[in-house]
């Protein structure tokens, strides 16, 4: 394994830390290092807590990992919440004009590195508050042994459109931070990095859905804004004109999907994107696409549910919805991209499948893979993507007789003409119809006509199954544990397996990309040989584990589930695997750490953030019918005790808040 280093940046929305994170990541990536970042943000425009992690590594990083070597704190809150996570040898870097970092909050071997931002920037004229980030970034470059010039290059590109003066000012500020660090601190990295200088694209999944679509020939993209799918719309909107794509923001998701289907039916490659709630509104039309056999690609980017839920958080909770979208049986393809670069290829393939088999293709993504940026290999993306449009009939000579849009062919695929073709006029109907498209629902629902056209439509799914790649087992065949995941968890499971391997637990992994149609035969064959199957999913109920059983009859031995909004990190999975292997039951009690977090929530909502939790202690035998965590709350400024909270260990109930005056 190569060297690596993880920087965390915490602050409030509006502090501009995503921009700083971007500058950092690009600087690093230009040096030839790999980057994988994750931005844990909130559904708020200004304020709130934003927590960005940038993992820098010499080798490909498949997740943002679970280390923290340097914390850049943009506010007090960040220090309190995250300082403790910094590992020995690391540091907390902060603007000492604004707040301090108590050493009591730090683990052993971690130092606080105060940076007097005002003093440094004073000589540089009027400086915006947001530029504190640049000072800290300058310091970071020194601390992490990066190259100053690389970042200068990024700043030059970023501010290029604002003119040289702005660039110069930024570079000066950056230099200020760098010089200050050089003078006062020592680098945190022991050895120098090996900079490969290979330039890699630093991208998100959503950007690649958009780019993939354009490369596949998408000419129509419709959407209604919805986190975490909106950035597809934004990319499309800002590149549509150049790329010849009509980008249509609609009045609602009903219009979005119906427009895309209309466009797809009329003959262009059309896509739309949304998240779970928007997709719920699209379901009826997905059935229409299945019925009229219109090609369309729909990207559903999952976020934390149910309902509006936790809209800026990740989850894999919409599998049931996507599989169950719309009434009745009809052909549909469901693909879950496995990692960032795969978003590109899934999209290309989605368009091909949609046109070859004339059906809706649903890409089920999630906030994690859609929004987290990472470096990928330059040739992970390609110009010359395969484009297969399937059986398109461009001419229909009058001698051909009446054109049958839904001809009962033995493959189930009926050659398609596009509207505008001379002599092949037909009307596509969502009512059941015969081969020509004539309704059978109105005058007489001829049962055999219905039966055969239903079979024709569904037969296409057999072809699709042959067309898509069966999943393969990664890792040793004789592993003690098989980890099964689907979609975006591929990378983090892989890293968890490395941790487990280091501890002597041999695992392998089956990561599912194609949900429907499903490679039941191949998957059964693989899993039949597994000693212990553990399904890893980011949802409450284990939707995929249930799905797997539905498709194969195989019951997984256990499930590792996460549904608190935050993505898996390798260690979470490896610890859970070890627990399961050791035969220990899953513990849903509120942990001490969690009790502290819950106290923060109470403080924010009821004590106006003027306090903070300190001591946490479990008390059994009380009147609440369960043990409780008693959390001492002190005033932030004075440290004076202001009261105690009691939080149920089993239920998580906030049983009581007793202000100090009331005594205990």
């Amino acid at each position, binding site marked *: 394994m190569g060297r690596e280093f993880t920087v965390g940046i915490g602050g409030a929305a509006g502090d501009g830390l995503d921009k700083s994170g971007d500058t950092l990541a*690009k600087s690093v*990536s230009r040096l030839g290092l790999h980057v994988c970042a994750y931005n844990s943000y909130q559904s708020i425009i200004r304020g709130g807590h934003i927590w960005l992690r940038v993992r820098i590594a010499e080798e490909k990083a498949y997740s943002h990992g679970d280390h923290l070597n340097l914390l850049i704190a943009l506010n007090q809150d960040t220090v309190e919440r995250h300082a403790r996570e910094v590992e020995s040898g690391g540091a907390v870097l902060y603007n000492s004009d604004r707040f301090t970092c108590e050493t009591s909050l730090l683990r052993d071997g971690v130092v606080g590195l105060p940076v007097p931002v005002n003093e440094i920037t004073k000589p540089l004229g009027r400086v915006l508050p947001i530029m504190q980030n640049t000072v800290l970034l300058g310091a970071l470059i020194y601390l992490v042994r990066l190259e100053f010039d690389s970042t200068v290059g990024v700043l030059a590109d970023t501010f290029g459109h604002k003119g040289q003066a702005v660039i110069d000012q930024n570079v000066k500020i950056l230099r200020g931070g760098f010089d200050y660090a050089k003078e006062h601190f020592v680098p945190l990295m022991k050895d120098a990095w090996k900079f490969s200088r290979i*330039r890699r*694209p*630093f*991208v998100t999944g959503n*950007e690649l859905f958009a780019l993939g679509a354009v*490369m*596949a020939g998408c*000419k*129509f993209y419709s959407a209604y804004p919805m986190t975490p799918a909106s950035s597809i719309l934004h990319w499309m909107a800002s*590149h*549509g*004109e*150049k*790329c*010849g*794509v*009509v*980008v*249509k923001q*609609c*009045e*609602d998701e*009903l*219009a*979005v999907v*119906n*427009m*895309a*289907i*209309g466009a*797809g*039916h*009329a*003959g*262009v490659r059309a896509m739309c994107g949304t998240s779970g709630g928007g997709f719920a509104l699209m379901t*009826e*039309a997905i059935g*229409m696409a299945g019925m*009229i056999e219109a090609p369309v690609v729909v990207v559903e980017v999952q976020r934390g549910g149910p309902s509006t839920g936790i809209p800026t958080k990740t989850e894999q909770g919409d599998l049931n919805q996507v599989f169950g979208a719309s009434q009745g049986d009809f052909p549909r393809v469901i693909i879950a991209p496995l990692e960032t670069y795969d978003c590109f290829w899934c999209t290309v393939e989605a368009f091909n499948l949609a046109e070859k088999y004339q059906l809706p293709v649903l890409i089920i993504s999630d906030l994690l893979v859609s929004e987290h940026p990472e470096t990928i290999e330059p040739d992970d*993306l390609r*110009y010359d993507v395969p*484009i297969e449009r399937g059986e398109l009939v461009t001419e229909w000579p009058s001698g051909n007789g009446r054109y049958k849009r839904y001809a009962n062919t033995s493959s189930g695929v009926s050659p398609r003409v*596009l*509207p*505008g*073709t*001379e*002599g092949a*006029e*037909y*009307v*596509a*109907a*969502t*009512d059941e119809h015969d081969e020509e498209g*004539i*309704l059978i629902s109105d*005058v007489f629902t001829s049962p055999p006509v219905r039966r055969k056209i239903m079979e024709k439509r569904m037969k296409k799914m057999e072809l699709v199954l042959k067309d898509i790649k069966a999943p393969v087992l990664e890792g040793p065949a004789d592993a003690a544990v098989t980890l099964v995941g689907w979609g975006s968890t591929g990378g983090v499971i892989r890293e968890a397996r490395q941790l487990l391997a280091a501890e002597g637990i041999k695992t392998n992994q089956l990561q599912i990309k194609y949900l429907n149609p499903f490679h039941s035969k191949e998957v059964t064959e693989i899993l039949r040989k597994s000693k212990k199957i553990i399904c890893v999913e980011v949802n409450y109920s284990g939707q995929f584990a249930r799905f797997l059983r539905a498709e194969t009859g195989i019951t997984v031995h256990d499930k590792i589930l996460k549904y608190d909004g935050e993505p898996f990190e390798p260690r979470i999975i490896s610890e859970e695997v070890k627990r399961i292997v050791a035969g220990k039951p899953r513990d849903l009690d509120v942990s001490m750490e969690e009790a502290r977090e819950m106290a923060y929530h109470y403080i924010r909502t009821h004590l106006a953030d003027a306090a903070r939790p300190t001591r946490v202690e479990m008390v059994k035998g009380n009147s609440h019918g369960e043990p409780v965590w008693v959390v001492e709350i002190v005033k932030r400024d004075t440290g004076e005790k202001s009261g105690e909270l009691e939080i149920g260990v089993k239920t998580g109930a906030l049983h009581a808040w007793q202000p100090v005056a009331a005594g205990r």
Partner: protein
Amino acid sequence: MATVVELPLETYQGVVEPDWCPGCGDFGVLRALEIAAQKLRLPTKDIFVVSGIGCSSNLPGFFHSYGVHSLHGRAMAVASGAKLANHELHVVITGGDGDGYGIGLNHFIHAMRRNLDLTYIVMNNQIYGLTTGQASPTTTKGHKTKSTPRGNVELPINPVALALVSGATYIARGFSGEAKHLADLIAGGIAHKGFSLVDVFSPCVTYNIVNTYPWFKQRVYKLEDDKGFDPTDTEASFKKAFEWGDKIPIGLFYKSEEVTYEETEPALKKGPLVRQPLTIEKKLFDDLMAEFY
């Protein structure tokens, strides 16, 4: 795109005989659409008729052209997508009052804001026909239906007024008892560059026993016959839009020339999307990639 010769009316007739109830107003609308297409000399291959679900929405199945018989309330959106994909098609939306002014109202209003070059024909029978006679958004107050056995209590939608405030650039109302007049209104709508609405009194002879042929025959008069009326005068149009009672106007309420959505959309400058190459230039790809570094 019009061909030079006028085609026989049968050209526009589908293979399937309409299966509406004998006497249904929708027969008149179908006929008027055929005449309009004939008059405009539209090649059948270039007509794209989209409908929702309802008796009226069965129309595309009886007309000879391309089309989609889509979902209840969604015809406008499907049509908009198809139009943007291939704006050389003459896209006509046909449907019912429930389909367009009930479940589909949102799309209708937003389509007007966009001034897409679409022609929307609503067979307004003031009832839900296909579902056997419930109140629709245009059912008049007091009208007893299956879902309002004590009489409807909601104010009916005023489609003409809604269109006026929402940006439609051609607003007409016809009566299926006046097929030639209606055909002219439809032809005018199709020929019009921009969004056109043709609301049609199309009696449901089975479920609407109030707003019948005779009821309309007694009341309708043609706006063209009101010499003082000028359909480019918005205020006058508004007044006419609210005329209802013993005298009900049909004809062209409003017309204006505005730039269409298709004209402002840069991606359509090079012609219909459906004819653009699927692959972008290599240079552009490289530029797009460069943004990621």
